[in-house]
């Protein structure tokens, strides 16, 4: 019965043209070179970047595109995508024939597409600073000995704190995790009168933070054993870290356990917390907001906490290294041009522009200079050196999309599950997802 139906369906599919017509794209595709000169006169390169580039460093994009156009004669058409649903759109687009030449994805989103043959191989040596690309970014590009994307920028998370509130209780930037807890305790007591006050602002679904705590005690999310992935959250070391985070959040945070970290800078700016864990640029976002959020050149308006913030690496907690990479789509008809543009957009000039916009550069070689040039990101640059990134598994993005860790954290924080039960549940989900063929 089964077979018969399948056969009928197969015929139907053939009639409908659903059957094979593509080439075998994952057979050893040639590596695209970015060296030499490419003449792109009359051509247009289609680039998909995420909206952050538009809101925070559009000038860098424009400058790189201009240099690219001067060198090749080709024009650039940049389309900015929203994080909310960019993957749906990418899926549909990649299925078709008219694809963007260059696509930006978050580093944790990349493996899924690299494994599926969506991107063409690049030659790292063609790009500046490639010998010291941040491992957390580059790891997502590696597959079977080749590199399928180019690191673009990074973000590392640090402890951002209110200098005035800490000074009031005679504390400074904590040097150890115990000191961090002690400081939180002191501040919490000092601000007891304010019922909305919580010493640490830590939204419940901030899994980058929670997993950093897991890493801090030697735990892990998942690891590869043979060709299988095994969830590690219910291992004792992971549980210890998770418990550490949960205890801290329950005691010191008044943040919504069902929210993620997207709005944390805005909320922190209200002055109801003394510390939060965020990206370097979030310190700026908490101190000043754009008068007109739709206009990148809009004047900045100070918030209640302007001039009262400082950042330091979170003691004993390694940072999650977030960020983005750039890939050349396998179906692109102008890979060489695409490589040229990426080269311009990731060279030292562009990276200097990103640093000005409070993003971390893509290579360790640039971190020290970045720290020196921009005091705001100095602690983050330091934190980036001691950083981690999620399992480099094909299906990792599916775990993220499935909100597995987020759900588990909310459940644990609200007492719906114990830490052990939550970890066990998450492990099951992770095992199923990562090992699915």
């Amino acid at each position: 019965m089964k077979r018969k139906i399948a056969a009928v369906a197969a015929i139907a599919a053939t009639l409908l043209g659903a059957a094979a017509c593509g080439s075998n794209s994952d057979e050893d595709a040639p590596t695209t070179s970015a060296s030499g000169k490419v003449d792109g006169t009359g051509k247009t390169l289609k680039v998909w970047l995420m909206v952050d580039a538009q809101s925070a460093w559009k000038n860098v994009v424009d400058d790189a595109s201009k240099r690219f156009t001067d060198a090749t004669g080709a024009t650039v058409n940049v389309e900015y995508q929203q994080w909310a649903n960019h993957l749906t759109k990418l899926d549909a687009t990649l299925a078709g024939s008219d694809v963007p030449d260059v696509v930006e994805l978050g580093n944790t989103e990349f493996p899924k597409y690299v494994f599926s043959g969506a991107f063409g191989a690049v030659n790292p040596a063609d790009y500046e600073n490639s010998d010291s690309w941040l491992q957390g970014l580059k790891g997502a590009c590696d597959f079977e000995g080749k590199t399928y994307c180019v690191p673009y920028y990074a973000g590392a998370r640090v402890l951002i704190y209110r200098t005035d509130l800490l000074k009031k209780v005679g504390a400074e930037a904590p040097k150890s995790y115990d000191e961090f807890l002690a400081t939180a305790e002191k501040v919490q007591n000092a601000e007891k009168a304010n019922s909305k006050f919580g010493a640490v602002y830590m939204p419940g679904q901030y899994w980058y933070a929670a997993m950093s705590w897991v890493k801090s005690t030697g735990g892990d999310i998942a690891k590869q054993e043979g060709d299988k992935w095994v969830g590690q959250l219910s291992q004792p070391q992971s549980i210890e870290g998770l418990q550490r985070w949960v205890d801290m959040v329950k005691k010191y945070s008044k943040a919504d356990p069902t929210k993620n970290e997207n709005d944390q800078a805005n909320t922190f700016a209200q002055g109801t917390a003394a510390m939060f864990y965020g990206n370097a640029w979030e310190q700026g976002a908490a101190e000043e907001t754009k008068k007109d959020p739709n206009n990148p050149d809009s004047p900045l308006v100070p918030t209640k906490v302007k001039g009262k913030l400082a950042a330091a690496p979170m003691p004993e907690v390694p940072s999650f290294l977030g960020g983005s990479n750039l890939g050349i789509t396998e179906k692109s008809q102008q890979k060489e041009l695409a490589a040229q543009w990426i080269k311009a957009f990731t060279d030292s000039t562009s990276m200097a522009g990103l640093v000005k916009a409070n993003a971390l550069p893509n290579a360790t070689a640039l971190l020290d200079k970045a720290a020196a040039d921009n005091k705001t990101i100095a602690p983050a640059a330091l934190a980036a050196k001691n950083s981690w990134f999620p399992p480099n598994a094909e299906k990792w993005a599916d775990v993220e999309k499935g909100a597995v860790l987020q759900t588990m954290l909310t459940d644990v924080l609200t007492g719906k599950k114990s830490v052990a039960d939550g970890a066990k549940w998450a492990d099951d989900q992770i095992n199923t997802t990562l090992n699915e063929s």
Partner: protein
Amino acid sequence: MSVVDSPATRRPRDPGGPRQNRVPGHVAPRRRKRNSGLVPWALAVPALVLIAALLGYPLVRMLVLSFQNMRLRELISGRTPPWVGFDQYTRVLTDEVFWAVVGRTVAFTVVSVLISVIGGLSIALLMRRVTRGVRLFMVIAMMFVWALPQLVAAQIFRWMTDSDFGVVNYLIDKLPGVNYQNHSWFVNPWQGWSVITALVVWAGIPFLAITLNAGLTQVPKELLEAATVDGATPWQSLRNIILPILKPLITIVTTLSVIWNFGLFTQAWVLRDGHPEPQFQTLATYSYTQAFGQARYSLGSAIAVITVLLMLGVMIFYIRQMFRIGEVD
């Protein structure tokens, strides 16, 4: 003819222009039921072609897809995904998570439709009872709500129920003895679903109340007055006069509400900020997350097919009834 002020009750100014084109001896084809030939098909062709092309074809592709195992690799390369027969269906139907989603979707649909329709009917009755100025105010208020796009309405509710800045927490917190500071509405699924239901009902009431109100204008006043004279209580009048007359209309609006609420997507999606937790998944969001979030396109298709079948099962009564109406005239 139709219930209210129907087009048909208006007299055409010049029905057909008797002065022109008069062909002596031309007899109207009274037996229009026969020999219509190609005319009806010619009229229906544009609609059929469009539906076949943009709904039918993708629908068949979806059906085909549900018997395959299409993942990202196949999607990108364009190669035919492996055929798996009913595997996707077996997988869906044996998954307790799926059944939980179905149960939740059905429960939500029943509750939200009941509240909306009863609420809409009550408001419609109320509109008949108030003075004109108040009625106008009610209509204007509902027009504004109705005009708000779904996405916008959902974002408003997200904003109002925000745990840090939401006005709802602020107001509830003002009640004596209640601490709703930083209350999170989506920890407890009951509370979360209350917010979603409130949004759906709030957005659905205008359509229902305005439509049912228009239907109520058709209830002959004389009948109700006669009933009152005969000693009927308002409740008896409602049950024995108003409801029977409104019944067809109520059936229609209820059915439409069922179709809409069963397909709940935007509201749950926006209120949960694009990542509904398991307890906030509906069939629509579940199918979407499976297909696009998890790149299980075939599984997503199978869920969609099952959804359509479930809907058909629920709607079979309605479709039969509609079909009969369509048959008759």
